[in-house]
């Protein structure tokens, strides 16, 4: 099983995400934003948190136009799995691999804390290690995590069971308390909270480990 983790100038969770994948048994290769293709045999691409390109223009907007993201979009188009965390979620929305946008937090403050979440669906390779309705916590650390989508988009997400996680105590104004969403084929997940920051005992919380081990199980079987 092989994971590729994308590194943009300004990424700062790339190595954490690599550790999350490695602990679950993945070989991990870091790929640079200027690379125009992914390594052979990649099963999943991780788009990490951070401040790609200094958040210039809009969070994730410049990264979405980078050579590697064209390769990632092609990979997703062929049915590849992609996990975008925090800035990675913003990048996936800007590439339109996921619907909606992430705006400035409603309270205008950068919010950094352990965030109580609810697993909204277990029906995905990312969330099958949880039960629907599980109360978990992942750390959050963001200024632009206010997820917004129009009425029709929200109705579609609900009808197709594509809301992966919701906040139990909405920290940023996100519509319908949405913390993470899935693509139509359920193989692309974007979320603001950081599962990779909750994967070992020294983190003080291991709730995120179930995501990486579920992915490992799903991709081995695939």
């Amino acid at each position: 099983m092989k994971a590729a983790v994308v590194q943009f100038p300004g990424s700062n969770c790339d190595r954490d995400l690599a550790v999350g994948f490695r602990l679950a048994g993945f070989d991990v290769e870091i790929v640079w934003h200027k690379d125009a293709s992914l390594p052979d045999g990649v099963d999943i691409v991780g788009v990490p948190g951070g401040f790609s390109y200094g958040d210039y223009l809009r969070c994730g907007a410049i990264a979405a136009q980078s050579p590697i993201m064209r390769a990632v979009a092609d990979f997703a188009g062929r049915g590849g799995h992609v996990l975008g965390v925090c800035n990675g979620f913003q990048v996936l929305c800007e590439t339109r691999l996921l619907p909606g946008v992430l705006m400035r937090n409603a309270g205008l403050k950068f919010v950094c804390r352990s965030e109580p979440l609810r697993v909204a669906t277990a029906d995905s390779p990312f969330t099958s290690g949880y039960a629907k309705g599980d109360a978990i916590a992942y750390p959050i650390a963001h200024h632009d995590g206010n997820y917004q989508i129009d009425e029709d988009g929200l109705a579609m997400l609900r009808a197709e069971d594509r809301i992966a996680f919701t906040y139990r105590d909405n920290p940023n104004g996100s519509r319908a308390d949405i913390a993470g969403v899935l693509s139509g084929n359920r193989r692309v997940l974007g979320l603001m909270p950081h599962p990779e920051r909750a994967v070992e005992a020294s983190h003080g919380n291991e709730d995120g480990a179930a995501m990486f081990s579920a992915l490992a199980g799903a991709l081995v079987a695939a």
Partner: protein
Amino acid sequence: MKAIVTVMLKQGVLDPQGEAVKSALGAMGFDGVTGARQGKVIELDLAEGTTEAQVGEMCEKLLANTVIESYRVEIA
């Protein structure tokens, strides 16, 4: 030639930064500010012959996120 691109949040999209500006002005004693919207201005220096349609494409593909933002192009 130059193009001035103004990007604003669409009407109806909550603009927390604009709201903060409005309430700061109110707190400073400037009465009568009933709304504030914050956007951005991008000035492009362009080679002669660049068309307005090309600038429109730049806006659609990068400069604005048309899910939430509208844009206006002024060729100067």
